[in-house]
């Protein structure tokens, strides 16, 4: 049986097609999910893709978090279904309190689009097992509100529990606290990050690297072996 990975489209989601393509390239069956539809259509995992859902109005991710699809998703994610939030998807996950913290406006106040070097800090989550701890990868980063923030206690907790999944290298691009680029929940099934692994899955496209493919091969292996 092929692994089915869903990608949610909210109004204003932009990178859904890229995420679906990445799922296909990695070898799973991509399934489009619609924000108004509570049914997750028997997918084994879900990707919340990047973009500007609801135009980032009010606050990035703040409106999408209340979509019908999120009701089911929040419930299933709490029960252990793997969920990956990329960029706006990460913002939605924090708004939904599936991951702690929040994203503020970049400290330089500009949108930034560049190839970003990261260190994989936790290679044991559902989405990172194909990497090794300490591995350095490069994937595109592109956002306006990417400055990860949380209170000191939460940050200490994340560090102590090994839940900082990715850290920025060669310069913090947005003022994120402790150079945090992505985090995971304690169970390791929910991962969120600001950079875009789905843009780094083909040698010719984007930055010309395939460093992001590991997210998708990790989850497929995990689901197949489950």
């Amino acid at each position, binding site marked *: 049986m092929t692994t089915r990975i869903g990608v949610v489209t909210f109004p*204003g989601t*932009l990178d859904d097609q*890229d995420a679906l393509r*990445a799922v296909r390239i990695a070898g799973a069956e991509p399934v489009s999910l619609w924000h108004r539809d509570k049914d997750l259509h028997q997918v084994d995992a879900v990707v919340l893709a990047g973009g500007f859902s609801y*135009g980032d109005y009010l606050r990035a991710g703040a409106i999408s978090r209340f979509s019908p699809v999120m009701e089911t998703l929040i419930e299933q994610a709490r029960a252990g279904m793997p969920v990956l939030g990329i960029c706006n998807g990460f913002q939605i996950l924090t708004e939904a309190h599936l991951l702690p913290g929040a994203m503020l406006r970049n400290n330089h106040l500009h949108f930034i*689009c560049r190839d970003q070097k990261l260190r994989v800090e936790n290679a044991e989550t559902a989405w990172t097992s194909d990497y090794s701890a300490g591995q350095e990868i490069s994937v595109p980063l592109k956002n*306006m509100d990417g400055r990860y923030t949380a209170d000191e206690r939460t940050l200490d907790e994340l560090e102590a529990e090994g839940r900082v999944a990715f850290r920025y290298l060669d310069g913090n691009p947005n003022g994120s606290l402790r150079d945090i680029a992505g985090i995971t929940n304690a169970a390791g099934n929910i991962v969120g990050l600001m950079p875009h692994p789905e*843009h780094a899955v083909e040698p010719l*496209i984007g930055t010309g690297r395939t460093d992001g493919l590991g997210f998708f091969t990790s989850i497929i292996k995990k689901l197949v072996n489950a």
Partner: protein
Amino acid sequence: MSLDTVKHAAETPDAAQPWKELGLKEDEYARIREILGRRPTGAELAMYSVMWSEHCSYKSSKVHLKQFGEKVPENDAMLVGIGENAGVVDVGQGYAVTFKVESHNHPSYIEPYQGAATGIGGIVRDILAMGARPVAVVDPLRFGAADHPDTKRVLPGVVAGIGGYGNCLGLPNIGGEVVFDACYQGNPLVNAGCIGVMKHEDIHLAQASGPGNKVILYGARTGGDGIGGVSVLASETFESTGPAKRPAVQVGDPFQEKLLIECTLEIFKENLVAGIQDLGGAGLSCATSELASAGSGGMRVELDTVPLRDSSLSPEEILMSESQERMCAIVEPQHVDRFLEICEKWDVIATVIGEVTDGSQLEIFWHGEQIVDVPPRSVAHDGPVYHRPFARPSWQDALQADDAGKLARPADAAELREQVLKLVASPNQASKSWITDQYDRFVQGNTVLAMPEDAGMVRIDAESNLGVALATDGNGRYAKLDPYTGAQLALAESYRNVAASGAKPLAISDCLNFGSPEDPDVMWQFAEATRGLADGCLELGTPVTGGNVSLYNQTGETAIHPTPVVAVLGVIDDVNRRTPVAFAQEGQLLYLLGDTAEEFGGSAWSEVVHNHLGGLPPKVDLAREKLLAEILISASRDGMIDAAHDLSDGGLIQAVTESCLRGGNGARLVVPDGLDAFTFLFSESAGRAVVAVPRSEELRFTDMCGARGLPVARIGVVDGEEIEIQGEFSIPLSELRTAHEATIPALLA
């Protein structure tokens, strides 16, 4: 004030009307009265005034633009030509590509963020209205002097607006230009281009046919923003003392536009529209009159059904509003329910506002009373045509006689080295990544090449790897020295850039930015530039698919440099064969293709070192450009070159610096026989490129060039961590990088 109905207008022929305030000339107002056989109603006057504005009617430029339709090269790629929202070109495998460049100059000066944002929004809807999915945008920009305080107001706003809108829309920004020149101080040029892709059978046209078909307005509600915006603003010269025109600039909502795109594409997929038009300049006046004019019958619109943001708007204001993110579709009655259903799915407001009639008039009603009764063609297509006087400016000869060849050249190698560093650090030649990093170039996952590459390139079919490339170029300094040659140089450079990326140039779009057409000097520049462009396109075999004219780019008596911006579209069968600019492999051989002469008129060197503009621009040889392009494309297809960079402003040293920094490798260069080091490095002779050839391909490559008669010279090798000009000087890459990359952030960040 009571409603000015058609009946009322007929009964009160002598009522005073604000035609002058709306920008109409006396004879134009008289002509409207003649067409209608009575005075126009307030609503009719509003419609004519915006539709007959320079921006919408091209009344001053039309007689010159005609050439683009007359001097058409034989080219079977053209599917839809000039006159529609955008031209359409066949790129093979059943795909068609539509593309266009437009200006949003005046609004962007007044309100940089919204002006630039809605510029993107407008061009994207033009492309969408043709039936295509927009796949990429580009932005050719021109600002005043880099160190002028107002540039610091305008540029960051424009860049943030382009990013804020385009990024939220999900379109990769893959190219464009950023140029600084004091002549654009009060008139920045904010041009925006968009590419869209569709299958041949999906082409849609702006026409309203079939009596009984419904007219559906969908997208954003209509508000009071941008009333008389683009049309009136872009049709007159700024006076330094005039009233603030800020409210005339539209306000964009990119989220709404994203929904509009997805909703419209789903509607296209189910074949639900008979005709479609976006609402841009002149809003509903334009959409209803153009749709009706291009169709077979008339149209009846109930204006009070238009959803409003501000319920106090008058019918005249509703007709003139340029509120963004709106489209108008003609839909057969049996498809209306499904159409509205799809709009509901995407949370897009859609309203049936009228229907196509079997009459011949465009009739508009307001709460049951008729306020417009006009022949649609008279509004949309039969606007005034001016044969503006033009004459070669009295100062042109003196300008051309002021030869840049007489400027002092560097006395020794040390001074040459110093000038190289000065050049690559100058605002126009410096890295623009501080700007372009504010644009998303990765979204949609098909970007193969993006700035600072010679051309932007996107894959349009993931199975076959078919791709398209687009480059935009323009050089106002060249065009000021000689508008005919300047326009051809813009064309040649853009054509060369596309070929350097490995794609075959197919067709062009242009954005013609000039001063006031009421000045005979400016009109001469315009006439020369359009003639040069039309002749050039004929010779290169690249038809003009459409474009845009922006006049009145002047403050008081001072016009901008004539600035024709040319966008060339190319196709590449397999994007795996694209050629980047980076010198990525040490040991590869560097070849200079083409002839280098002592040509410095209008050059970057003359500007940066001497602050000089005079003489003649480089010579154009379009046959040579064609040959060079063929060589670049063949070499890319057959794997003979790994990098290519076109030579243009800044000359060879600029191109080599960019390619070295991008690849992270140095180069050792030798001045070829017959050239001095200065000319070798700084000449801006056209028809040239530098390529990196793997050693294993050297013989094959030089044989091919020899057989086809293209002069080539081996000038060095990719090697080390510095650029060395043998026997002259060397500069470490780190020093070049600092010089090249620090300038723009220092000025603007």
